[in-house]
């Protein structure tokens, strides 16, 4: 996948070039490209002077990093305890069947990615679904379709 990697050096310049910055750098890269392209990881290893194997370990250890391209709309279903008790599994099932996607997958037309997230701290409004940083609370089976259409 061809990307404009000029942005990368801009990202590197925002942080001290030490191991301590690694997670913050990867987060900025993910914010820019919606995922972590391999070339970005290789560049990060060079610029921060961290072995590539360690950069790769960090990228694969933490849930929020994705090494695969993600869709235009990333849908995150919260599966925290309060959301679970209030029917999060059902909401997830509904979304899976409406989009024909399993959790963790991206649609072929790259429009949607469905992910689960452990807890976003909006527990009093369970169940919660986030579409690209927009929070939806008290989601019901009856309004799932509308939620997916809204941007």
């Amino acid at each position, binding site marked *: 996948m061809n990307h404009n990697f000029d942005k990368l050096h801009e990202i590197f310049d925002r942080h001290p070039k*030490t191991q301590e910055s690694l*997670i913050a750098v990867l987060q900025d890269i993910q914010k820019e490209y919606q995922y972590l392209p391999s070339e970005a990881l290789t560049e990060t290893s060079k610029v921060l002077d961290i072995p590539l194997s360690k950069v790769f370990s960090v990228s694969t*250890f933490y*849930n929020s990093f994705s090494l695969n391209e993600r869709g235009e709309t990333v849908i995150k279903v919260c599966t925290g305890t309060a959301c679970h008790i209030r029917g999060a599994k059902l909401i997830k099932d509904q979304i899976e069947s*409406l989009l024909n996607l399993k959790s963790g997958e991206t649609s072929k037309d790259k429009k949607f990615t469905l992910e689960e*997230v452990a807890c976003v701290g909006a527990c*009093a*409004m369970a169940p919660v679904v986030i579409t690209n940083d927009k929070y939806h609370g008290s989601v019901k089976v*009856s309004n799932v379709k509308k939620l997916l259409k809204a941007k």
Partner: protein
Amino acid sequence: MQIANPKQLNKIRKEYLAKQDQYPKKIMVCCGTGCIANGALKLVDAFRDILKKRKIKGFTVEALKETGCHGFCEQGPLVVIEPDGTFYSKVKAKDVEDIVEKSIKKDEIIEKLLFTDPVDKKKITKYNDISFFKYQKRIALKNLGKISAHSIDEYIAYGGYQALAKVLSKMSQDEVIQEITKSGLRGRGGGGFSTGRKWKICKDIKAEAHYVICNGDEGDPGAFMDRSIMEGDPHAVLEGMMIAAYAIGAKQGYIYVREEYPLAVTHLEKAINDCENLGLLGDNILKTGFSFSIKIARGAGAFVCGESSALMKSVAGEVGEPRAKYIRSVVKGLYDQPTVLNNVETLVNVPIIIDKGADWYKKLGTPKSSGTKVFSLVGKVRNTGLIEVPMGITLREIIYDIGGGIIDNRPFKAVQTGGPSGGCLPESQLDLPVDFDTLTEVGAMMGSGGMIVMDDRTCMVDVAKYFLEFLVSESCGKCVPCREGLFQLLKLATKICEGRGEEDDLEKIEKLSDNIILSSLCGLGKSGPNPIMSTLRYFKDEYITHIKDKKCPAGVCRDLITYEILDNCTGCTACKPVCPVNAITGNKKELHVIDQNLCTQCGACFAVCNFDAILVS
């Protein structure tokens, strides 16, 4: 402009309060993550729009405050009019015009925006009369909902940084430590270790550097206490850290914020910036020679990073794997230097204790658990949200007096406390006081404050399975008892939920759990078996029914239940489109039927039926 001494702090305070005095009424719009999700920012825009177009006597944009989370998220967006305390809930942008005309320009109450008590169905006008708020003792949460979340001037105006000034100009490091120790403040993240003792151990170690880290990871699903505090009162967190840093001799601090809390990060960044501009962070603070800086380190999605040694590896930019803590992190922590790691809620209690004194603090709560605790009361309870109560209050008082009891009047079944490290307690234990030690004796724990209420439609075996699924996906994978042991526990729980349970499974679960608890490397593994062990302790019959009778009494475990449509079906067709496998057939106004061969027992039809026409058996 940098503040050079405490007098200047007072000057800022007085000037700000004088300016605010011009406004007889103030509007507090809750802008916590919950209310924002429900459209709070649209309300703020609507207010600003009106103020741009018209001049209103005694009210300008200075009297409009975007506050932190009140904790009553399900009722949001929330608007409170001070000083009266008029409380409007579920406010929409189109109501703003009315609020300005009736409640700001005049003194009228808008009935339809008032909160209705779910138990006695009466409308309540004032914030303090609502049972959810009435029984609370808001100390750590004192600023939430009362001040703007983005203004350092407002924080100072309402008493902020007075404690810091007192500490830097009048108290020695040891005096600070003694005061905090005397107060009995214990770690609010769940560990319950004496904060003052921790600081003392750290301070006494001679090292190149000392560090203060604020643990804002709040990984327990169902808990959002720290989120609200970081978003709504970021300066209180900073002030607590500054005092801790002074006490232990640290020059550098970090706030580790969970990746899933972007608003908290933004507010903390602004607060740090404002402090640096005013000279409250950086070199030679208040010209006392004390220097301290704070950086924010963001998590990236790993529950295990709430554990101290894993958190410190993550701060250092590494994989968040814990290490054996035979040498504690207070001795060898971040970069092998002595480090104090304190929870958000613990830290915001610090300035209050310095201000009001340890003796005052000790009067609250119980002798061994002084002070208050913030809980996140969620689940099947009517009033869900964030509450702060004195330690020693009973579970029953929390769930019924404050929480308003169970939704739809369904029977109470269990309350889960302490997150994935905690346990479930049944009705018989509801009169226990909540504190650091009592709940642990009965197989649960207070933990960080998550309290999830469950009714009879919750299956306890499913709850145990849920927590095991969570822990298995969050395990770092370093040690065998956690990585393989919890994995096998999950397999056993799943077997039981799927109707394949065998006689000796329960004994296997107990034995395996025992060994995992003894031999795991870190707290995640060591407390991992707690949910399944506590549900086994109090709900053994439910497990046996799953194993022997292959039935799920709560109607949850999909392999053990069936959904049927009853005769009272009106043919409204609401259920047909939501079935993911198209198992429902029927025309409008005709009885619908579920094809049992296709049905996956997901429960979507049951969730949308408004006529109680679907039976779960």
